[in-house]
């Protein structure tokens, strides 16, 4: 093997890379689910359903990306839902109907989410508490505070039209938010897989001790990673508020766990440094498709939860089986 410039890898190499990609299984599952849904639910085939699916995926994808960052760094952040809720409820209270206020409110809330994330990161690394316990506790406080800000979806406190239009606007048949999500995913991919920061983050997630011995400032990177998670959670909150037209103190709560479902179903593994941005998007899409199909088929919400749990088990098991298979083949 000689050193050579970037040339196109052969088809075989590409196939192997695709099969080894952590995000591969989720797309197989997606394809199967899609085909089943297409056959069994006639209304699934309705032309505007795809648009609907895409816009619903946005929030899960953004929250899933937020979670992917921390999981890759070896932590977990269960306060994602709390941050989403509080941003969502604060937005109608502070945003006034002029461009300056709209921009300022967004900036303020994004900064607020980031600071909350940084704070979790700081506490996790400095006090050395278990991230799961700490962020769960923070999540409860934030959800409580969101209820205090807005005890119920209050349509008397309306979000300015201009902001709603910015969030729900379309380019051709597809919403701007979908494009924005793709852009955010692309930037996330770049940060995780092409920057030193991303490499260090994955190294810490795989093996803290080795990363530390290589001179990586592990604590700092973990704190910043939690900050990114907080930022992305705040983005999710802004988006949801814009879609709803006002705040909803309970809409965010489920995202703490759903974000994990999206990331894990998408092939991101705990404490290995293995993960996939594309996989997380796939995981988010799967959550939405399943909900959509069940709605079309008239499955009750209760069973939807049961099935969503089973899906997570299935996705995790599929990943484990794939890993075992590859190890047995020694590749």
């Amino acid at each position: 093997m000689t050193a050579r410039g970037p040339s196109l890898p052969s088809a075989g190499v590409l196939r192997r890379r695709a099969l080894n990609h952590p995000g591969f299984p989720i797309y197989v599952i997606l394809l199967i689910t899609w085909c089943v849904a297409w056959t069994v639910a006639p209304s699934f085939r309705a032309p505007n359903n795809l648009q609907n699916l895409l816009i619903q995926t946005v929030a899960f994808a953004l929250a899933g990306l937020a979670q992917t960052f921390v999981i890759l760094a070896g932590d977990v952040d269960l306060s994602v839902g709390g941050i989403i809720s509080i941003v969502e409820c604060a937005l109608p209270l502070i945003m006034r109907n002029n461009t300056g206020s709209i921009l300022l409110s967004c900036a303020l809330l994004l900064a607020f989410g980031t600071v909350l994330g940084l704070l979790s990161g700081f506490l996790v690394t400095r006090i050395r508490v278990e991230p799961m316990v700490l962020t769960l506790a923070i999540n409860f406080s934030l959800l409580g505070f969101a209820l205090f800000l807005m005890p119920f979806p209050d349509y008397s406190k309306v979000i300015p039209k201009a902001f709603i239009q910015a969030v729900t606007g379309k380019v051709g048949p597809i919403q701007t938010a979908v494009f924005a999500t793709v852009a955010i995913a692309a930037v996330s991919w770049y940060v995780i897989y092409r920057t030193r920061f991303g490499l260090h983050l994955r190294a810490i997630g795989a093996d803290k001790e080795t990363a530390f011995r290589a001179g990586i400032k592990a604590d700092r990177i973990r704190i910043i990673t939690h900050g990114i998670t907080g930022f992305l959670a705040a983005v999710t909150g802004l988006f949801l508020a814009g879609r709803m037209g006002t705040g909803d103190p309970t809409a965010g709560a489920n995202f703490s766990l759903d974000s994990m479902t999206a990331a894990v179903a998408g092939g991101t593994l705990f404490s290995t440094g293995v993960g996939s941005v594309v996989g997380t998007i796939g995981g988010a899409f799967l959550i939405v498709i399943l909900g959509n199909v069940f709605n079309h088929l008239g499955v009750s919400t209760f069973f939807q939860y049961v099935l969503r749990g089973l899906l997570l088990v299935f996705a995790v098991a599929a990943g484990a089986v794939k890993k075992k298979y590859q190890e047995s083949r020694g590749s």
Partner: protein
Amino acid sequence: MAEQPFLSMRGISKEFPGVKALDHVDFQTSLGSIHALIGENGAGKSTLIKILCGVYQPTSGIIELGGKPMKATHPDEASRLGISVIHQELNLIPVLSVAQNIFLGHEPAGALGSIDRRTGRARAKELLDRVGVNVDPDTPVKRLSLAQKQMVEIAKALSQESKILVMDEPTAALNNNEVQKLIEIMRGLSAAGHGVIFISHRLEEVFQVCDTITVLRDGSVVGTRPVAELDMAGVVQMMTGKAILGTRIPVGQPPADRRDVLEVRGLSAKTKFHDISLRVAAGEIVGLIGLEGQGQRELLRGLFGVLRTTTGQVLVDGTPVRLRSPRDAIRAGIIFVPEERKSEGLGLVLDLTQNIALPTLKRRQRLGFIRLEREREKVRSLIEALNVNPPVARHKANNLSGGNQQKVVVAKWIAVEPKVYLFAEPTRGVDVGAKEEIYQIMRRVTDQGAGVLMMSTDMGELLRVCDRILVMFEGSIVKEFQGTEATRETMMKAQWGLS
């Protein structure tokens, strides 16, 4: 040595609470030299290396590097100053590529916080060529063989422009071809002007590749000599010295008709040990010794059903038994007192009663309820018999000293009335007085008709306690001694695979 030493450690002492690990150690080496650092287990080699690479701070003494005093308080600082250690357990991240691992922490920077991957790949290739290993820098490390991983570690050390490379038992897990390759690389490194410190348990390799040997014993330097002036027997003598033996505990009196409580026939476990046959008679204490990683630990774990064995047979009291889990082993009458008593032997937050009563709860229960008065009685008698101090059944296990914890572990198993006791390092971290008592307890259980198989790295202990001693080397039993006729020298030679 004619030239000025590049690395000079002078008067290094290191004390841990209650132990003097290093006592005024002098160690010097120059660039271009391959210098062996050898000694028994616990002689102080790893402590010295940990001080050199900044993991520990010496209690006293100075280190000079290239004529300047050096102070490293963190491994990263030491590596920046030019000292790299290639550990036995490798410091590589399996999911990252070879190039990413080599430059981890000091990647060539590109625009926008990115990594200049082209430069990285090219430089990685260059370094890999220098150590003579042909792997693609983009391969994830998890796909490499152990030998290749070691080469990558060396390349990583070279990327930091290390002057001194410490190799801590690099050959322990390699096959012969790979060892030869590594030896070539070490020669290449020394020819290129690096200083290599080689820690090994394999004397043949030491003699093949090193130019100087420093022998440590009990935390002191016995001597530093050029290889040409030494032979293997001389080195073994330096390592063992004239150690003072404690008095022997009385040899067990095997019953007139020898009855094997444990018989192992041709037992093997994938890559860990092979074709092990041994017998332990009622009333007998049999010792098991070997250098680090020769399969002795795994053998005990295999006999306790923790490690899967592939072929062979185990008989307890003449009856063949299947050992697929510790539960099977305990049922068959085999118990194991592990080395890691804190994590594997005791519930630290449980009190003594709970710890001791745990394996035998069933015997004292009626309708699913534990008959506490019986339990208390049994526990009290065991605590008394084994002289656990303080003899308070309500004390939590983590408040006891190491020796007393060990007694509690033994007590809990005595209650099961096993036929075979397996011990791993029974007195590690135990003070002298408690050691004696543990030996007495071993003798007592064998006098009552059980057999003991104990693994230890402490030769003095085995010589004092065992009726017979088995030596393991590279996964096989290579030698058997009668306890009364073994000496440190003969045992040491057998352990190094020399006799």
